């Protein structure tokens, strides 16, 4: 297991370097094709050329290769690698350290992601197991119908609907009642810095909603499949209690695809919280990326994308290691 982990960790290096190169190349291409983003900082006003030049120099965008379409600017790429290695992630166009921006935004997104995962795992798996055990009965139909509903509603619709329902209708009523502040925070319209967990409960549900539906359906199908397998039949024949058969033998195995899904979802949730963060005014990674993309602030985009690549890599490694725990037949040598 130890050697396997080390080997996997070594795999990270080419993946990271490759990702960063692709990002870097896209950045240089965008500069080469659409032009210097500095000019658009001034809106419709034409600033003097020397102002543009000075800003271009200050942000390190004065490399002549940025004027040659197609040139991959290898020099700039290695320069960036060197700076990243020293922990220098550059600044955005407002001279905020990118590292500061990320360290401010990341904890909030991590909390949001954790809450979303919690909803997904607890509600999703429970619903899936219940449906799988009572196939074609009322519970199963109910779960199937409600998850289809959850999956088919776009996240911005679900988000705004829940925001208005919990934040305004229930929220205004709760506030009139004079509930304790943390309860009010749960039913607030936006993220409240004073209640970093409570005010993220509803956004967490919205963020996890789509995956919750998937996980319930995945668990259900997987469990039904496993319950039909030979070893479950043997277990039953041995006279094991239903609880042990389902809980230990069947469920552990049928959770493998679910764990894979959750693992990949961690990265997707962190990067994809954009819409949810926008609706609930949560200052997290999604909002940071969105703003940076719109403003053409490539230092931020590249740093965040690199970070998310790391998250994906680590999450998938953890998933692979979890397989061994869940399925004793899987061994890593």
């Amino acid at each position: 297991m130890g050697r396997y982990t080390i080997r996997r960790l070594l795999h990270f290096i080419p993946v990271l370097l490759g990702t960063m190169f692709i990002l870097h190349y896209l950045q240089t291409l965008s500069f080469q094709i659409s032009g210097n983003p500095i000019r658009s900082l001034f809106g419709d006003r034409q600033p003097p050329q020397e102002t543009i030049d000075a800003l271009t120099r200050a942000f390190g965008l004065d490399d002549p290769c940025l004027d040659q379409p197609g040139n991959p600017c290898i020099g700039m790429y290695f320069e960036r690698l060197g700076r990243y290695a020293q922990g220098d992630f550059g600044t955005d166009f407002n001279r905020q350290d990118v590292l500061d921006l990320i360290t401010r935004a990341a904890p909030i997104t991590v909390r949001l992601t954790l809450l979303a995962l919690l909803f997904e795992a607890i509600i999703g798996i429970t619903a899936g197991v219940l449906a799988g055990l009572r196939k074609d009965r009322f519970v199963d139909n109910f779960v199937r119908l409600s998850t289809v509903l959850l999956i088919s509603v776009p996240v911005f619709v679900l988000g705004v609907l829940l925001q208005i329902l919990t934040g305004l209708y229930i929220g205004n009523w709760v506030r009139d009642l004079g509930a304790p502040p943390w309860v009010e925070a749960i039913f607030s319209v936006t993220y409240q810095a004073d209640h970093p967990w409570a005010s993220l409960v509803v956004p967490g549900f919205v963020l996890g909603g789509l995956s919750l539906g998937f996980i319930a359906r995945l668990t259900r199908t997987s469990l039904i499949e496993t319950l039909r397998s030979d070893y479950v039949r043997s277990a039953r024949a041995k006279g094991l209690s239903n609880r042990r058969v389902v809980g230990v033998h069947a469920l552990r195995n049928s959770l493998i695809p679910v764990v894979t899904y959750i693992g990949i979802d961690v990265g997707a949730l962190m990067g994809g919280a954009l819409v949810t963060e926008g609706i609930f005014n949560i200052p997290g990674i999604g909002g940071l990326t969105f703003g940076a993309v719109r403003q053409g602030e490539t230092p931020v985009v590249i740093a965040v994308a690199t970070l998310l690549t790391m998250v994906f890599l680590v999450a998938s490694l953890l998933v692979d290691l979890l397989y061994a725990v869940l399925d004793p037949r899987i061994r890593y040598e």
Partner: protein
Amino acid sequence: MRRPKRLATFALPVATALILASCSGGGTEEEGGNGASNESSGQEGGSFSVSTAEPEAFAPTSACYSSGCSQIISMVWTGLLQVDPETTDQQLRMAESIESEDGQNWTIKLKDGFTFHNGEPVNAESFLRGWNYAAYGPNATQVGFFFDKVQGYDDMQGKNPKAKTLAGVKAVDDLTIEVALNEPFSQWPMVMSYTPAFAPMAKECEADIKACNEMPIGNGAYQFAEKWQHNQSITLEKFADYPDEESAGLADEIQFKIYGDLKTAYRDFQAGNLDIVDSVDPSQRLQAEGQYGDQILKAESGSYSYFGFPLYDEAFQDIKMRQALSLAIDRQAIIDRVLNGDYEPATGILPGFVPGAREDVCEFCEYDPERAKQLYDEAGGLPGDRVHIWFNNDGGHEQWVQAMAQGWQQDLGIDFEFESMPFTPYLGALGTRSKVDGPYRLGWLPDYPSPENYLNPIYGAGSSNYGDWGGEGTGTEESHQKFLELVDQGNAAPTVEEGIPAYQAAADIVMDEMVVIPLWFGKTFILYSDNVEGVAYSPLDQILLKQVSVVS
């Protein structure tokens, strides 16, 4: 123009900078900017909250060229003077007097007794510190070019500049500054009213700009109560040692809540979490009007939208063609049906609040399809009866451009094709002054309340004159020359009033030549709770937050 606070509302610029909060010390609400909504009781104390977008920067103040940060900078810093947007009277703040005999050499005397929030006295040196920092090329500030009329500015530009300080600016003594310009410029005090560029800088700030950005040290009526909570909030509290009664604020505490999306701000308002929504999202305006009809303030903003013509393109060199295209736009209908009625059709190229603005001076800005068709035919039509319409597609312009284009199709019988792209490549294309082959959209937010600011930066030399008015072979060299002369004449006039006739004549040339199609001027849509009183807005200004009082 400054960047509007939120890119999404590029079509509907939120507000402009220059806090010129008119005087409201002891409840003189009558003097509030245009559209004072509900009478202020002038009561001091209390706290209220107002929505904003994440500001760009506070230190150096000269890194701020957007309405979001300049609104807060103007509360935390007090500049030399403010300009009353109504009367264009100069209201001296930090300055005791600003005088010049020839319009070229200016003497500024400072008031004594002002201190920074950390206790440092504000003197001539503090101003020089800020100005030299702003103008020094390698510092790469955004508004450094505000100093380009000052002697010695050119020596501070480039990679390795010759000078580190402005040769034309001298501190004669502790409270006297002398400024020498390259040539006479009567509007110089107006330029200096842009606080982010001309604010003083504390010593402590110069030593650690980064720390100062998080916890600014200004000399204004309000100070930061806590560090800048990025993307969340900024809380200002009254500065106890502020010496100027007239420009002090009413509320003890003002909280700026930062929203990434305007729609969320409105919902937070509904939940009772917010007192003032600085600009309600267009999609929520109808609902807001139904629900909070008497708590809405609609006021004229300084934003100006227009379509420019590529005069280097032969197809647009016939003035009749330009007139025809302008006549075939039903401005009012587009505003009513597509733009929620949030704009005022342009009948000139200067908005109403600018001194010297006149109504109904643009002969070809009304809707007259028959005359348009006639002129279009007389001009010989466009090649292939086809027009390429240029605009940026990341500012929410599609719908109204579509409406405008369909109008042309209907009234002039021409086909249209959109050439739309994101803002950066769009500006790049305009900058070539050859690639753009059709009318192009642009807008303008003023920096200071002067007609000059609506003329020179848009049509002057080295400006956003992307259509190349006055360019060789366009047949407009003469009129452009005349225009530049008139603007210069206005600039050289000893006072603003005396310059107005020249500026008006310059504006007339723009309309006679139909260099651009003036479209409309913007309006704001501010929503406030019954917790606050005296919410007012001035067209150049944002909300006059200093004179908002809290209902106890």
